[in-house]
C-alpha cells in the first residue's frame, strides 16, 4: 500500500498495463520525453521506448483515428488528449467510428481503445483549458465513459478500461491530479466499469456526483452533518453505462436528490440522472429532484473573480442541500 495522488495512480496503471501486455501503447502530444504536460506519462518513454510511447503530430483526429485502426489490428492503444477541451477535432472519429464499429459490423469488428482526457476547471485555465466534456460523450451509444475521483478507483478503472473490448473515454479531473491522494494497494484489485459507489451513507438526501464534485459533495455533507442533516453521497465513477440501481436505491431510501456536476447545467449529464430519478423513483420522492451545475456560459473565464462564479463549491452545495432538507 502506498499513498499516491491521482496522477501517480494513473501513471502506475499505464505502466503496469504496458509491462503486462505488449499490445498496449501510448500515443499523444508530448507524451514522450515531456511525459505529458501534466506528467501523467512521466518516465514511460525511457522504460518502453519511442515505439510504444509515440509523440504524435499535433492533430487529435489522427491520434484517435489511427488508434482505431491499430485497435482493429489487435493493439490496445491509449490515446491521450492533452486537454479534454481539445478532443473535439476528434469528435467525428469517436462518435462515427470508434463507438459504432461493433454495431455497424454486426459484431465482426471492435475497437478496444482508451482515450484519456484531463478535464475540469478551477485551475485558472480559462475557456479552453477548463471544460467538462462528459455530456457530449455520454450521449454516444457504443462508448463507455469513466470518470473516477480517487487514486484507488482511477488505477483500477484505467486497468479495466484498457482491458475492455470496447472504446472507453477516461476522464481525469485536472484539479484532482495532485490534490486528491489516497492509498492504492500493491496487490492487484479490481473496480468494475459500471458500478457506482456509495461513498458516504445518509438518510435525508442523496447527492449524486462524480469527479471533483464528489469531493466537494462529501465536504458539504460533512458540514450538514454538524447541522443534523444526514446526506448520502453517491460517486458514479462510471457515467456510461450508468449504475441505475445504486442511484435509484439511494434516492428511494432518502426521498430527495441533488445532482451536482461542474459542466454547464443545461442538457448536462446531470439532466439524465434527474430524468431517471423523476421517472423511476417518483413515488419515493419527498421533494423536487434538484440539480446544481456550472453556469450556462461557455466554460469558465480566466480572471479569478469570474472563474470563481462558475464553479459549484462545497458552500453552494451545502446551501442547496439546506434548501432541499427544508422542503
Amino acid at each position, binding site marked *: 500500500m502506498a499513498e499516491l495522488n491521482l496522477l501517480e495512480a494513473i501513471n502506475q496503471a499505464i505502466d503496469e498495463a504496458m509491462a503486462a501486455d505488449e499490445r498496449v501503447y501510448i500515443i499523444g502530444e508530448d507524451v514522450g520525453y515531456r511525459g505529458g504536460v501534466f506528467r501523467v506519462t512521466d518516465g514511460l518513454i525511457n522504460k518502453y521506448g519511442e515505439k510504444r510511447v509515440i509523440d504524435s503530430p499535433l492533430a487529435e483526429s489522427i491520434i484517435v483515428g489511427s488508434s482505431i485502426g491499430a485497435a482493429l489490428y*489487435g493493439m490496445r492503444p491509449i490515446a491521450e488528449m492533452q486537454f479534454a477541451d481539445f478532443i473535439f477535432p476528434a469528435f467525428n472519429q469517436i462518435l462515427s467510428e470508434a463507438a459504432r464499429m461493433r454495431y455497424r459490423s454486426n459484431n465482426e469488428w471492435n475497437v478496444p481503445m482508451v482515450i484519456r482526457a484531463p478535464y475540469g476547471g478551477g485551475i485558472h485555465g480559462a475557456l479552453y483549458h477548463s471544460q467538462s466534456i462528459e455530456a457530449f460523450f455520454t450521449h454516444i451509444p457504443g462508448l463507455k465513459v469513466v470518470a473516477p475521483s480517487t487514486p484507488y478507483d482511477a488505477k483500477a478503472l484505467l486497468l479495466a478500461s484498457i482491458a475492455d473490448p470496447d472504446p472507453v473515454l477516461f476522464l481525469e479531473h485536472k484539479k484532482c491530479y495532485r490534490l486528491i491522494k489516497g492509498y492504492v494497494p500493491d496487490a492487484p484489485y479490481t473496480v468494475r466499469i459500471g458500478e457506482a459507489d456509495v461513498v458516504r451513507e445518509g438518510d435525508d438526501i442523496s447527492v449524486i456526483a462524480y469527479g471533483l464534485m464528489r469531493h466537494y459533495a462529501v465536504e458539504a455533507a460533512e458540514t450538514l452533518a454538524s447541522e443534523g442533516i444526514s446526506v448520502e453521497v453517491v460517486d458514479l465513477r462510471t457515467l456510461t453505462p450508468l449504475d441505475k440501481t445504486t442511484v435509484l436505491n439511494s434516492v428511494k431510501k432518502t426521498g430527495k436528490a441533488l445532482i451536482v456536476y461542474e459542466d454547464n447545467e443545461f442538457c448536462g449529464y446531470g439532466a439524465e440522472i434527474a430524468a431517471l430519478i423523476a421517472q423511476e423513483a417518483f413515488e419515493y420522492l419527498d421533494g423536487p429532484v434538484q440539480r446544481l451545475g456550472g453556469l450556462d456560459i461557455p466554460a469558465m473565464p480566466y480572471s479569478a473573480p469570474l472563474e470563481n462564479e462558475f464553479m459549484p463549491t462545497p458552500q453552494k452545495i451545502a446551501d442547496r442541500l439546506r434548501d432541499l432538507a427544508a422542503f
Partner: protein
Amino acid sequence: MKQERDQTHLLEMYRLMRLARSLDERMWQLNRQGKAPFVISCQGHEAAQVGAALALRAGHDWVVPYYRDLGVVLTMGMTPREVMLALMAKAEDPNSGGRQMPAHYSHRKLNIVSHSSPTGTQVPHAVGIGLAAQMRGDDIVVWTAYGEGTSSQGDVHEAMNLAGVMKLPVIFFCENNGYAISVPQRKQMGVENVADRAAGYGFPGVVVDGTNVLEVHEATMAAVERARRGDGPTLIEAKCVRLTAHSSDDNDRTYRTAEDLKAMKAQDPVVKFETYLTSEGILDDATKTKILNEIKEAVNDATKYAEAAPLPDPATVKRYVFAE
C-alpha cells in the same frame, strides 16, 4: 506494359472487371424493380480497382475501401452472394448484417475493414493499421481508397502526415472521377492532381490513368514493394470516369452535360481492356462467351440467393452495442 505478363493473369483481371460491372448493372436493375432502395456504383472505376487490388496479397494485406470499391472487394475475395446480401440488407450479409447501407463494405476474414458514410474517416484507420503492423514487425501493406472530393477532408491530410512521419506501409489510393456528387474538380481543388500533395508529406505521389488496368496495376505493385521494403507510403491518384449518376438517389443531368458523360463513356475501362485483350489476341470470342456466361450465372445465383435470404430479426436491433 510488360509482355511477359501471363495470359491467365490478364484474363483474371478482365473477369474481375466484368464481374464488377455486371453485378453493378444488376443492382441498378433491382433498384428500378423496387427491390433495392439504394445503389452506388463502381462503373468507370473497375480498372483502377481491380488493377490496384490485384497488387495486394488477398487475406494477408489489409484493405480499407470506400463505397465505390466493388471491384476491390470482389478481387479480395468477397463473393457476389455476399454483395447481394448487403444490397438487400439481409441478415446473413457479412458486411453489416443489413445494418449499413449497401456498398459499406466489411469482411473480417478477408481483412476488409468496415467503413462508414462520413467521407474520409477511413483513411486514419488505414494509417493506424499500418502503424500497428510496423510495431509488430508484420510485413503487411494497407491499402485505402477515397474520392478526389474526399481528399479535401482534414482527416486525409492528418493521415498522410502521420504516415509520412512514421514511414508506414500504407497506400493512399485516390479514385479521381472529376466529381464529388455534383461538384466538379475545379471547385474542389486548386490543382490538377491530388497526387501533387504527396510531396508535402515526404513520399511519392503518382498519377495513373485509372481507366487502364495495367498502368494502375504496375503503379500499385511498385507502391506495394516500396511499402513492404519499409520505405513508407505512396499516394496513387487514378484518374477515373464516373459512368453513372453519383448514386440511385442522384440525377446527374442537373449538373453535368451530355458531352461530359459521353466523353467519360468513351473511356469506359471495361470496354478499353476488352478491346485491348481482343486486339492482342488474348481474348477470343469463345473465352469471352465463357467468362460472360459464368459471370451471368454467378450474378443470377447471387440475386436469387439474396432475394430468398431472410431479413434480420427485429429482436436483434439492440445487439452488439458493446461486447456481449
